[in-house]
């Protein structure tokens, strides 16, 4: 059967190309595949500054990208061993389902439908978000309720489309959605003035406003948040081992912040008196064995990208270009929602 398939494929394409196009990954367990390949394949955004975007040199950066780097550090001992596959909103689930990527770290909202019917599992929330609106300041719109009959630009293939409809239907306000295939096209249309408002997750709005607008001060993000958008990485269903690794790597970054471990002090903290810190950094108990990793898996992740707080500050926080407040993404003991189960 396999022979036959390769003959059919070879007949269709020219042999040379088949040799050269790679990407035919592994079969079987995700972790084994990653190790065999010595590379993590990570599905990321096509370009959303602060979350996942490549610079002109092709170097990727952002919160979602840092999750990939942390994973590569804990599994492969090198945060650079990641292949980034930029995916648009429509491609992302098929890419993950089909094994084209090992993990989808692309500001993706967790919902029941996605969890239950797409054959995917949600790991941990890396960013608590909500959908908002952005308008040009000169329109003098101060509330989403003023958007009667307005054209609203939105990207296809997102939860946003449905939320938009639900919200305005409940408010009994008629609007005209203008739906684009790609983030780029929708952003371009909004900035050209085609739409009176742009809608996506609030973090996305901040990113677009601060990184894409000619002059960020010309645009205003409206106060209403019309939905809950918990964003985080997804993996394929049916590989519990890999699911656990992704989930716990994120928890480890959160735990690290809670216990004050940073990229800079990770080495010196190894000898810290706190048993919890020792457990996280692998200087006492071997928590890695339970996950199929080695002792220092969490230490390497923190060392590579810093703890969750550092990751947040660097990519999207008040001092970054996006200037997002920590808000709901603060740790539970600082008034936020980020509450990692203990590494124990």
């Amino acid at each position, binding site marked *: 059967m396999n022979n036959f398939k390769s003959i059919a494929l070879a007949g269709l394409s020219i042999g040379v190309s088949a040799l050269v196009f790679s990407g035919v990954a592994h079969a079987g367990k995700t972790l084994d595949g990653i190790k065999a390949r010595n590379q993590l394949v990570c599905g990321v955004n096509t370009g959303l500054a602060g979350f996942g975007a490549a610079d002109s040199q092709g170097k990727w950066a952002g919160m979602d990208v840092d999750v990939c780097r942390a994973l590569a550090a804990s599994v492969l001992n090198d945060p650079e061993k990641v292949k980034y596959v930029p995916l648009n909103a429509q491609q992302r689930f098929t890419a993950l389902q089909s094994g084209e990527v090992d993990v989808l770290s692309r500001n993706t909202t967790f919902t029941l439908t*996605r969890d239950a019917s797409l054959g995917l599992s949600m790991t941990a929330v890396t960013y608590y978000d909500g959908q908002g609106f952005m308008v040009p300041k000169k329109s003098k719109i101060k509330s989403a309720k003023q958007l009667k009959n307005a054209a609203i630009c939105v990207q*296809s293939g997102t939860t946003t489309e449905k939320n938009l*409809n639900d919200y*305005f*239907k409940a408010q009994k306000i008629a609007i005209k959605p203008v739906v684009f295939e790609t983030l780029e096209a929708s952003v371009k249309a909004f900035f050209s003035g085609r739409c009176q408002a742009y809608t996506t997750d609030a973090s996305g709005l901040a990113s677009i406003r601060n990184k894409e607008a000619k002059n960020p001060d010309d645009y205003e993000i409206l106060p209403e948040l019309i939905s809950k958008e918990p964003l985080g990485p997804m993996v394929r269903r049916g590989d519990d081992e890999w699911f656990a690794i992704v989930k716990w790597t994120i928890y480890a970054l959160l735990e690290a912040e809670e216990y004050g471990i940073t990229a800079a002090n990770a080495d010196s903290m190894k000898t810290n008196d706190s048993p919890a810190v020792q457990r996280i950094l692998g200087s006492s108990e071997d928590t890695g064995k339970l996950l199929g990793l080695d002792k220092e898996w969490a230490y390497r992740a923190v060392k590579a990208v810093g703890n969750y707080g550092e990751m947040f500050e660097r990519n999207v926080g008040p001092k970054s270009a996006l200037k997002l407040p920590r808000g709901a993404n603060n740790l539970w003991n600082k008034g936020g929602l980020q509450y990692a189960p203990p590494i124990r």
Partner: protein
Amino acid sequence: MASTEQQSPATPPASTGGTKTSRWRSRAFRGLAYQVILVVVVLLVGGYLAGNTLENMRVRGIQSGFGFFLQPAGFGIGESMIEYDSSEPYWKAFVVGLSNTLRVAVVGIVLTTLFGTLLGIGRLSRNFLLRTLCTAYVELFRNVPVLLQLLMWYFVLTDWLPDMSAALNPVTGFFLSKNGLSFPIPVWSAGHFATLLGLGGGIAAAWWHARRARHAFEISGAQWPVLWPAIGMLVAGTLIGWLVGGMPGAIDMPERGELNISGGGAVTPEFIAVTMGLTIYTAAFVAEIVRSGIQAVPRGQSEAANSLGLSRAQNLRLVLLPQAMRVIIPPVTNQYLNLTKNSSLAVAIGYPDLVSISNTTLNQTGRAVECILVMMTVYLVLSLLTAALTNWYNTRMAIKER
């Protein structure tokens, strides 16, 4: 046609030469073997792919089936000719998408035909400037990808036009801005029903007149005027209907609102860009077809018409075009089909056509296979219908040899 189709190598006797031992030398046997191999290969590939798909869906718990078409869609559609609400099911959303595709296709086909024919005739003009201009147009627009042209028109429409608050108002009642074109439309009232009836009556009368004129021509050779009386009947019928209906005259004028221009009819910049782009692109091809169709008519026909004393316009209308039509129609239908298929590119500029709706549904439900299958089937049916129509026309128009 049928005879040329089957002029493949003549089938020789079942066995050639003396090697009766090898059945492979029998052409009939080999033919059968080839076919069996092909069928088996197709079945194996199909089975392999289908098997993989089912296995993948099972393992990952992806749900399948067409049942979701009955569930509420839950997303809005920016523009639609038919009433649609987000609480209606997915199949209705698909119908809306199809209607949007057809709207672009119909408007595009009408404009392309007019524009392309003019250009094609212009390419044969005796006027050097006109001829060169038309040639330049054709060479310019058919050699640039249509997607690029759509993107370009859309950019011009949305980036260079003023905001809605400063909409251009070239003629009273018409507003042109980034949000599209608004124009006055008559308000529907019961009286318009009579107008429509009158129009129908006018069409019937014009048709009847044309028939009688042709009949008279065939019997006695008398040439009755057809065009102007027919137009007169249409106008008169419509007018009478309108008068009978009580002269409904309410017109919905678009007005500048706070955020938006409200009232009247409106088309979005997406629709304008798609229609304009496709028309401009396809017209270049139609022009070439029209030109070569006219040139395909033997020169003697034109000369004969001249010697009969027909004017240039008469020559074109009575001699050249009827003959050129036979050459022109099949490739032009092909272009119509291309235009319809190319309207799928609308998805790149945010026009809610069939492809766009199908993609949105795909993303909401995750039913990739079902959505893409439905979309492909619709296009396939459209093109098979067109092909059937063309065939019917070809048989009708074929030269009847007596």
